[in-house]
């Protein structure tokens, strides 16, 4: 019998097809991926067959996906080991304490984005405050004096307040960072951003405060954080796990107009493939794109690589792509994208221009 004549049941009963679905052997994976790309007309039938295999195997597939997570975790672990060697001044740190990987996998993230406009707050002037910046590194891992660790994203900065770990645990963030906070009930960990103050009660979270972004976003996976508006200290929101808070920053400028300040609490954006929230993808060292229009991808690439991206044609903005990028250059990423559906791009004066 020819595969082209196969119905869903025939595929589901085929042992090679089953090994492909369960990612059991590479030969079967290669064969079926190739076959499916040759016969796009069989897509619906294949999908149904895959669904049956997934149901009956109790979702045993995706070993490769899981393997990727493990490799990410190991890479992060090695990175941190490296960072620890590079930070010998932190004598009090115990290794156990700064291992954020289990926590990362448990998925505890807090994300906050703040408009640059609001980042005009005067920082406290003190000889003791300490500035840590990631500069042009994609990610920089830092261990704080209290044993908490931070992974700073490119172009991001944290400033520790004077007396950090002695009289307070306050810091100010510009950009984005992933925190693993050591529990200390006596000294709550405070993250200040231009718009809000975030009080943390010992957990792991991610804060982002980007320049030029019209909204601020705070997303929490586990643990507890309290977000307080700077302009209206009486307004506080305690986030539950798997929720994110989005504030439209443009409306914050007129806080006196009651109710004008729009904010909403939403569930986190879980990835349909691996069920990890998209908010944490950057920590896992890759850029993930799931069937998104090029205009949104461009905005992500701009943020990811720190280079402006503009369009010469409107038509290409709506092309949709999916893909995953790991520590590649933006040129390679764009090259890869245009393989599946062509467009062209060029770099002019430090700006990338995308056209038909």
């Amino acid at each position, binding site marked *: 019998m020819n595969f082209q004549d196969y119905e869903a049941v025939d595929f589901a009963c085929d*042992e090679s097809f089953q090994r492909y679905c369960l990612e059991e052997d590479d030969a079967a994976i290669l064969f079926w991926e190739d076959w499916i790309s040759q016969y796009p007309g069989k897509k619906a039938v294949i999908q149904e067959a895959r669904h049956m295999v997934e149901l*009956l*195997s109790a979702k045993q597939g995706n070993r490769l996906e*899981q393997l990727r997570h*493990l490799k990410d975790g*190991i890479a992060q672990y090695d990175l941190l080991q490296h960072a620890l060697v590079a930070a010998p001044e932190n004598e009090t740190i115990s290794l156990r304490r700064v291992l954020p990987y289990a926590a990362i996998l448990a998925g505890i993230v807090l994300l906050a984005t703040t408009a640059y406009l609001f980042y005009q707050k005067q920082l406290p002037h003190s000889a003791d405050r300490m500035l840590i910046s990631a500069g042009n590194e994609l990610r920089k891992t830092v261990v704080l004096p209290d044993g908490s660790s931070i992974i700073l994203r490119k172009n991001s900065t944290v400033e520790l307040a004077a007396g950090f770990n002695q009289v307070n645990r306050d810091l100010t963030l510009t950009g984005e960072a992933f925190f693993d906070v050591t529990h200390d009930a006596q000294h709550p960990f405070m993250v200040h951003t231009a718009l809000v103050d975030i009080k943390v009660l010992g957990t792991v979270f991610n804060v982002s405060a980007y320049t030029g972004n019209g909204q601020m976003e705070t997303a929490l996976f586990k643990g507890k954080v309290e977000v307080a508006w700077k302009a209206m200290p009486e307004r506080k929101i305690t986030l539950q796990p798997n929720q994110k808070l989005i504030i439209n920053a443009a409306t914050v400028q007129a806080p006196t107009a009651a109710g004008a300040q729009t904010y909403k609490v939403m569930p986190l954006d879980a990835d349909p493939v691996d069920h990890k929230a998209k908010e944490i993808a950057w920590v896992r060292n890759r850029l993930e794109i799931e069937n998104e229009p090029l205009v949104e991808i461009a905005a992500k690439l701009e943020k990811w690589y720190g280079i402006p991206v503009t369009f010469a044609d409107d038509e290409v903005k709506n092309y949709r792509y999916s893909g995953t990028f790991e520590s590649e250059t933006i040129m390679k990423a764009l090259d890869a994208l245009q393989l599946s559906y062509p467009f062209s791009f060029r770099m002019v004066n430090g700006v990338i221009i995308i056209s038909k």
Partner: protein
Amino acid sequence: MSYEEDNCIHWERLRSGDKQAFFALYNNTYAHLLRFGLKICGNDELVKDCITQLFLQLWSKQQTLRPVSNVQAYLFTALKRHLIDQLTYQSKIHAAVNRMTDEASERELSYEEIIIQVQQDEELKQRLHRAMKALTPRQTELIRLKFFEGLTYEQIAAQTSQSMKTAYNTVYDAIKTLRRLLK
């Protein structure tokens, strides 16, 4: 070389810091650990996360790992401990924890329970439950051996004393029935 012999070799290499052996051990034992975990709790995401955590932990303490006589048994025990920790932590699954820690009433989940529990869509759970009821016990058993335990038709035929053709046909008819009822 046998499955366990492979594991022993990977284990010894892992102890000397061989990353390749580490991933080989992972790939070799992944399906076994997953099935073992699913029988303890029907939550595939939790089991997968715990397996990843277990291996991250192995890697982080590779230098202090001791030789073990049965690698799979060691990994099973460790995975079970991770799962219990997680379930206790989540505390919403008290019943499951009690079931696992109370040796007397320890019970594996049945195949039907597992495939239904890992689904998240309530309606699909109901339909799957109804569809599975329509199968004969023999069909259910063969579906389990084929899709859950991952046996080949040849192995199923040998184990159930029938021809490969009969085994295939039984599975085929079962899938056909399920497909019709799940539509």
